[in-house]
């Protein structure tokens, strides 16, 4: 993308006013998405994102300058403006870059950019058609087949010069059902760090049927009751509870700046002893996986909480400086235009010893949250929320009628203590996570868990 020699000259310029660290992040990304509405191709999104960012540190100060002009002159100008903003001083580092090959643990069989639109349209159509044909109650189906070809280059004053190509594929199908004048939606959005061979693993028809079935079930459902009750949260995307209730509050993004309820809690019991939580960026082919992070630190498997005890935060370089700790390989950014910060990769609760059946039968009256929507959290207070896309009432240990329109709210530090049953069926779901460094792909996951009591927002 940018020759090593050019990077050396640009970095030398960047450290010319006394920076103790400098970095170039350059990117060339093809973002491609086909959108289907009502069985017809409605639009194709096709964008080339290309630019670079130069970042310099001195102590706890960071400066970043970005540009779409990736010629040497453009990059030098960018480096000069970063150096100037840092203040006055003289160069204390000699730049000497050595190329490093991290290897790629995510082999791609079919690069999406090399496949004609027509083939992708057929895949998407088969999924959407399966949704439309599922039931007469389905009144509309929309679908998207997304593929991203994200090429990055990182060069740092520590001597690193490395490139990576991150390819991701995702199919999203949404269905709308109308039953007796009540309209509800259902969705299914699987994705992976894979090429189009992803569809050898995932059948587009199954994606469509999943979305349609959920819409039909929910359209026939009554409103979820409101109140505090025990909740069984299903496996897979249910892991969003940990992502919101705890994950964000363990990122240096909040911890390093005294904006987290978990500041200063390393080594302490912050969760029920049944809770072991892991962030693992090294899982081959998974949606949130990376070979190395956006600061050039290799991806790692970090145990965040072990049997309820806080073991590790998720840390980027600048956060690490403030906290006096090393980066954990969690620095991520949506694109060159965003300042990287600590983010999650594939984050999940480890499986326990109980079974799903034991969890359901342990609840006399409560909610079974089978499928979750997204959520959000304020790390300062730990207050989080997330939506229940598909819920059922549990009565006398049995799953009963479906209920709609529920959300769960609580405080992370409290809810972590109330996760008192963990089953053995770990699964992950795919999401896009938004924070100060933009929107990035992350996996959330868990086996089915029981939260002994939580506020259910219903009506």
């Amino acid at each position, binding site marked *: 993308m940018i020759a090593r020699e050019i990077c050396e000259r640009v970095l030398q310029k960047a450290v010319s006013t006394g920076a103790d660290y400098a970095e170039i992040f350059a990117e060339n990304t093809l973002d491609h998405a086909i959108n289907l509405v009502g069985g017809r191709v409605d*639009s*194709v999104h096709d964008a080339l994102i290309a630019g670079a960012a130069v970042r310099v540190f001195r102590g706890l100060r960071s400066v970043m300058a970005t540009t779409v002009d990736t010629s040497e002159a453009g990059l030098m100008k960018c480096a000069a403006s*970063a150096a100037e903003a840092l203040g006055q001083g003289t160069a204390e580092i000699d730049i000497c870059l050595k190329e490093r090959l991290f290897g790629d643990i995510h082999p791609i069989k079919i690069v999406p950019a090399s496949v004609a639109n027509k083939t992708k349209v057929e895949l998407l159509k088969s999924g959407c058609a399966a949704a439309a044909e599922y039931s007469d109650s389905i009144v509309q189906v929309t679908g998207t087949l997304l593929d991203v070809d994200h090429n990055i280059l990182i060069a740092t004053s520590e001597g690193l010069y490395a490139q990576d190509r991150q390819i991701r594929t995702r199919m999203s199908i949404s269905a709308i059902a109308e039953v007796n004048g009540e309209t509800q939606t259902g969705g299914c959005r699987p994705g992976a760090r894979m090429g189009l061979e992803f569809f050898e693993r995932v059948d587009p028809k199954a994606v469509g049927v999943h979305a349609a079935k959920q819409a039909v079930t929910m359209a026939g459902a009554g409103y979820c009751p409101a*109140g505090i009750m025990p909740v069984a949260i299903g496996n897979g995307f249910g892991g969003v509870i940990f992502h919101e209730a705890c994950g964000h509050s363990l990122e240096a993004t909040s911890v390093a700046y005294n904006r987290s309820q978990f500041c200063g809690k390393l080594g302490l019991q912050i969760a029920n002893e049944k809770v072991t939580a892991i962030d693992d960026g090294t899982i081959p082919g998974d949606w949130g996986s990376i070979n190395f992070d956006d600061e050039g630190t290799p991806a790692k498997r970090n145990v965040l909480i072990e049997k309820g005890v806080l073991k590790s935060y998720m840390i980027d370089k600048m956060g690490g400086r403030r906290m006096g700790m090393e980066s954990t390989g969690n620095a991520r950014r949506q694109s060159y235009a965003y300042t990287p910060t600590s983010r999650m990769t594939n984050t999940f609760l480890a499986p326990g010893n109980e079974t799903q059946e034991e969890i359901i039968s342990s609840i006399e009256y409560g909610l079974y949250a089978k499928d979750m929507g997204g959520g959000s959290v304020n790390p300062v207070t730990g207050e989080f929320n997330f939506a229940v896309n598909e819920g059922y009432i549990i009565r006398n240990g049995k799953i009963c009628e479906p209920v709609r329109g529920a959300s769960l709210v609580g405080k992370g530090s409290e809810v972590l203590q109330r996760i008192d049953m963990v089953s053995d069926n770990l699964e992950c779901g795919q999401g896009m996570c938004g924070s100060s460094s933009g929107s990035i792909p992350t996996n959330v996951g868990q086996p089915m868990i029981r939260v002994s009591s939580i506020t259910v927002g219903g009506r």
Partner: protein
Amino acid sequence: MDFLKFKQLVASEAQKLGINEYELYYQAAESISISAFQKEINKFSSALDGGVCLRCLVNGKMGYASTEALSEQEASALLRRAADNAAVLESEEEEFLTEGGATYQKVSTNQQPLPGAECLKEKVLAGQEALYAADSRVKDGSTGQIFAEKMHLAIHNSKGLDLSYENTLVGYMAGAVVGDQGEMVNDYEMRVAPLEEIDISEVANEAVKNAVSKLGAGVAPTSNMPVVFAPSAMKQLLGTYSGVFSAENALKGLTLLKGKEGQKIAADCVTLVDDPFYPQSPMPMPFDAEGTPTHCKNIIQNGVLNTLLYNCKTARAAGKENTGNAAKAGYDSKVSVRPFTMYLTPGKCTEAELLEKVENGIYITDLGGLHAGANTISGDFSLQSSGFLIENGKKTVPVRSFTVAGNFFQLLNGIQEIASEMEMKGATGSTAFLSPAVWVEGLSIAGK
């Protein structure tokens, strides 16, 4: 390469490829952002960004492609990609480009140059001083951020349209973290205005005041009760549900308001306006994303749905008047529909008088998780909330960690009264939502 040169390259390449109808949508910005933590500058960033989106008509279908690399090679690649994409499109609505030569309303924008970094640093540091001075309970974690952006937008097409728009936006945000007896809470306040008009310490004080008011909050009781949405919460709700007024969504069967024009959909006191020239808007727009001249319109008038929001394609498909609401989520996005400044027309009584009428209920200041807890198709919402109890006609104790649940379409009908005070504070672009406090009957609160 600048846009002018790129435009010429595309023109000659288009001719070679036999593409006669196309449009280039160009957006570029120079920006600077400075943040402070404790009493020091900790983050500085500057950016030079820009990109071009091309759309072209091939066999009646509108294909899109965009790029941030403005080069000779890209000019040709862009056309080929867009034509390729057009070839698989199957939507039946007729698409077309806007003819040049229309007249546009003059708008006043900020034509000042980008403020200097030194001046911005001083401001944000003064903000930090003001934050810490405002209350002894202010904690580290309180931050300030100032940003300035000089943006340029241009639309050029093969039918003689050649529009350009420049504006400079400057904003300051203060985030206050306050703590007392082990409890930590936070809030923020933001202004977007020409730099000299932003009163930094007032914004910082306001942020601290907001945060302090949340200390010692209890949990609301679970019940069905009258709710007053504060301006800050109502504008969140309007923003989340603004898509239900989109003709694009109506065309796709994605809004329950499809076919409801001319029908009563809200209480009599509800008049919902979309104004591209709203006086306090930092970004008044004379044209929309297709280059159509914009105008002010009532979406809902006294409870009756007057019009949905249209662009070229959706207006023609529905046989309605184009409201000039074509919009792109980003320069690289497909043309869709979006409001400019959308607001609920203020009523007659003050907020204080309105609370007296309500007597007992709940005053909601913040809503959370709108991207997940609000279903824009069914209208159902169940949202994390915080605010204050209303007791004997007054706001009393703070409450939080509860949910409010209802349905947006039912809520429109359930509006009892709208207060008279309305203020635009932190709008950062051409789309903004605005509302006075709104009293709604009977929503479900889940708390203790």
